[in-house]
Every structure is written in C-alpha cells, then in structure tokens.
C-alpha cells in the first residue's frame, strides 16, 4: 500500500486531468537570433499530482508553463489534456502568475468570479462562488475591497481563489509565492496544500526554491540550464502529510537530504549520474525515509 512519510494512507485518489507532453520543444524567434528555450521534453502528469518544477533562472520554466497554458505553441511536439491537443488557453487549465494579475477596475469578489461570469454564471451563482472561495483563502471580509488595497500576499490569495472558482482541471502556477516575504510564503504554502489535499486537482508549480518544491510537491522536476531539459524527475512525499507540523517536516533529516540532493542537481548538474541510478526502495519503503520511485 502507498503510504506517506508518517505512514498515514494517501488522501483520496487524484482528480483532474491527465496531461501528456510529447516531444515538446520551443525556440523563440524574434527580431534577433533565435533562442532555443526548451529541448524536446516528454512527460506525463497524472491526475492529482502536485508537480514542482525547479531550475536555474532562464532555463525555460516559464516557457514550459506558457506552452501548457496554451499561450505559446510548441515549435515541435504536442501537449494533450485528456487526449485532446492543446491549441489555445482554456478554462480547464488555470494560471496563477508571479505577479497577481487582478483587475483593478473590479472589486476582489468580482475578480474571483471573473471566470464563471464570463462562462455564463448568473449573479446569484457568482455571489455564492465569491463567498465560498474568498472564505477558502481567508479573504471573506475583503470581497468589496479594490485589489490594490490588499497586501501582496492577499492579492496572490485572491488570484488563487479566482483560478479555483473557475474549477480548472489543472492549476499552472509560475513562482506564485516568489515575491512574498518568508512568513507569508509559508502560510500560503500551507493553504495551498490544504486546498490541494481537499480537491486533488493536478498542480504544476514553478519555483526557484528547492525547499518549497520538496515541501509542496508529490513530484519534483529539475531542469537543466537553457536550453531546458528535464534533469531529474523525482517522487516525493512530504506535502501529502495531512497534518504534519510543517516546521518539524522541514527540519527532518529525510527532508533536508532530499532538498540538498536536488539543490546539488540545480547548482552542480555534473552530479547528475547519481540520479540516473534507480533509487533503493519503492512504494513500501521505510516510512521514515522519503519514498523514492
């Protein structure tokens, strides 16, 4: 049976979409010389996975996310969601940007219900959705405020609520907590985890912070320097814990080990060979250690 680090069973099976990346490469062709941002990448995101992507700055993480979102079209290869090829942005793939892209002419509640309203929700339904999702992210008293009256952390919460209210199958997040102070970031990490545990929608989460990746993800992708390719693809377990003490988890030997190994890979990719070997253990590995697949 699959178990978490503390031995508790996994939460309910994942929902959300299965996303297939088939030989996707991308080269920017602007006015200057072409920039090869991504080498051909093959990946499958299973429903309910929380995939964290780390890699050096400029390695193509944002490019990959924009391809998944449908903002960019692969130079070669294709992306499929539940068997259908992605050709444009779509409501089943929600996007959270590094800077919360809220609409200043709408109040927070109207921002949160933007997607449903565009897709035909009535006023009654929108009001209920606003209440539900503002409560979920702890902003129930701020629905009538303008976005610019909120702190950066609260704005990012509202941006997450806006995507959640649209009920996407997969959430694409590009360094969403990168611009926040450490305390706010840790709070939002916990909130995101508890939301994800409750919904088990697929999440693709970019960060340049290995600790964040290891803590949140069920799976960590490490990308090489540009042109980006996937150096390592690693299952982890820490974020799955239903009620661990976050500080204790982050301070545990197992957590630090995984984090350091991934950091080594980001900063010293020559150690890559270590990762090419199959890791010992499996699904039933000693629960005191992070599970390796």
């Amino acid at each position, binding site marked *: 049976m699959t178990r978490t680090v503390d031995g508790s069973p996994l939460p309910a099976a994942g929902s959300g979409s299965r996303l297939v990346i088939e030989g996707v490469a991308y080269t920017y062709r602007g006015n200057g010389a072409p920039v090869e941002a991504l080498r051909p990448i093959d990946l499958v995101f299973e429903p309910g996975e929380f995939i964290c992507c780390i890699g050096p700055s400029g390695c193509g993480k944002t490019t990959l996310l924009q391809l998944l*979102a449908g903002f960019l079209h692969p130079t070669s290869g294709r992306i499929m969601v539940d068997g259908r090829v992605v050709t444009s942005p779509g409501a089943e793939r929600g996007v959270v940007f590094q800077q919360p892209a809220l*609409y200043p002419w709408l109040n927070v509640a109207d921002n949160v219900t*933007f997607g449903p309203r*565009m897709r035909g929700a009535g006023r009654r339904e929108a009001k209920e959705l606003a209440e539900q999702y503002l409560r979920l992210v702890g902003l129930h008293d701020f629905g009538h405020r303008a976005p610019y009256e909120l702190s950066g952390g609260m704005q990012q919460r509202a941006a997450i609520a*806006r995507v959640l209210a649209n009920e996407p199958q997969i959430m694409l997040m590009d360094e969403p907590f990168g611009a926040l102070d450490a305390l706010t970031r840790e709070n939002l990490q916990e909130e995101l985890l508890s939301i994800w545990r409750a919904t088990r929608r697929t999440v693709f989460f970019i960060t340049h912070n290995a600790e964040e990746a290891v803590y949140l993800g069920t799976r960590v992708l490490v990308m090489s320097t540009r042109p980006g390719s996937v150096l390592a693809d690693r299952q982890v377990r820490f974020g799955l814990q239903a009620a661990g003490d976050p500080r204790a988890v982050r301070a545990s030997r197992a957590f630090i080990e995984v984090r350091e190994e991934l950091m080594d890979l980001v900063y010293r990719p020559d150690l890559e060979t270590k990762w090419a070997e199959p890791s010992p253990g499996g699904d039933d590995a000693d629960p005191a250690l992070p599970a390796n697949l």
Partner: protein
Amino acid sequence: MLAVVVIGWQAIRTFDLAPELFVPAPGRVLERFLVFLVEPYQGYTLPVHLAITMARVLVAFALAAVTGIPLGLAAGMWGPVHVISEPIVNFIRPLPPLAYLALLLIWLGFGEPSKIALLYLAAVPPLIINTRAGVLNVRWELLGAARALGARDRQVFLHVVLPASLPFIFSGARISLAFTYTTVVAAELVATSSGMGFVTLIASEQLRSDTIFVGIIVMGVTGMLLDAIAARTERRFVPWIGRA
C-alpha cells in the same frame, strides 16, 4: 497668492507705473465684470458669450470622443487601421488650426459647422493616439489571465482591454479638452460674431482694456475649472491610476 497678485496689480495703478490703457485698475475690471454679467456687449451678456464658447468646445470634444476613442481602439487592435490612420493623424496634429481654417470656411461656410470642424480636428488626434497607446500598454498577464479563465475574444476586449485602457483614454481626453479650449479662442477670432474670443478681439480693437481683462480672467478661470472637473471625473472612473 491671489492676494499678492491683486495687491501688486493695484500698486501698478496707485503708483501709476503703467498707462491706464495698458493696466486698468482691479476695481474697474471688477466693475466691468459685474456690468457685463447683465448688460449685453456685442450682442450678448458675458454668460451668454461664455456659454456659446463652451458649447462649441463641448460639442466638438464630444464628437471627437465618440469617434476618436473607437478609432484609437481599432488602431490598437488591428494593425491595418493603424497603418491607414497614423499618417493622417500625424499630418493633422502639428498643423496650427488657423492654417486649415481658411479651407474649412470655404468648404463649410461661415456658420457654426466650420468652427466645430476646426475644433474637432484639434480635439481628435490626442484621443486617437492615447487610446491606441492604452490598448498597446495593457499588461500581457491581464489578457492571458482572462483567456485562461475562459473568456472569449469579445469578452477579453470588453472586460479587459477596454477598462485597462481607461487611464490612457482619460489622459488623452484631458489633453484633447485642454487643446480644444485653447483652439476655440483662435477659432472665434475669425468669422464669428459671438463667444469669448470674439468679445476679446473686438474689445482690443475698441481699446477697451477693462473688457479684455475680464475676458482673459474669465477664460483662464473657466479653463482651470474645466481641467479640475476632468481630473475629478478621471479619479472617479479610474481610481486605480498609479496604484495598480
């Protein structure tokens, strides 16, 4: 500030630093103002002359807004519209309005249409240019977010591009209004028989410096009020300027 100006002004009179014809006493100007409020000069009282001038400004500005803003939006959304409209706008914009007034008089006659057309041509370029700039300056993420939330092209335009362009549209409107107001006086110097510009011109021909002073002060204060109203309207409709 105002007190300093008035005291300095009165001092010029008291010590007779300039001829009465050049600088009439503040008291005389005030008296002339009060009389002009109720007694017609050149056919109308001061409020009527002012109302005629303001009507010309506002009609031309309104016409410019209802055509220039959509044209600016179109130029921002579709390259071909921009390619066609840009040279025309760039040609008209630096032309001094009086340069084409003669032509407008021949085409449209000496009535109101030629004046409105002149003011319209002054008013419309800043509206087109700024509105287009507003469309081009919409943050990419605002558009991407809407599309990823399921908005269709028409919805993206109505619910994102349009409101996001408002700060630029408003600044274009303020520039346009100010320029139209500046131009109206010039327009009224030629081939008119009413309005503040006309009154001031006739007063100078008749060497009535008190009336010239009244005209200048009323036009200056009206211009300031007009911009203050525009600024308030802007704050009311785009309160996020500089904050988001």
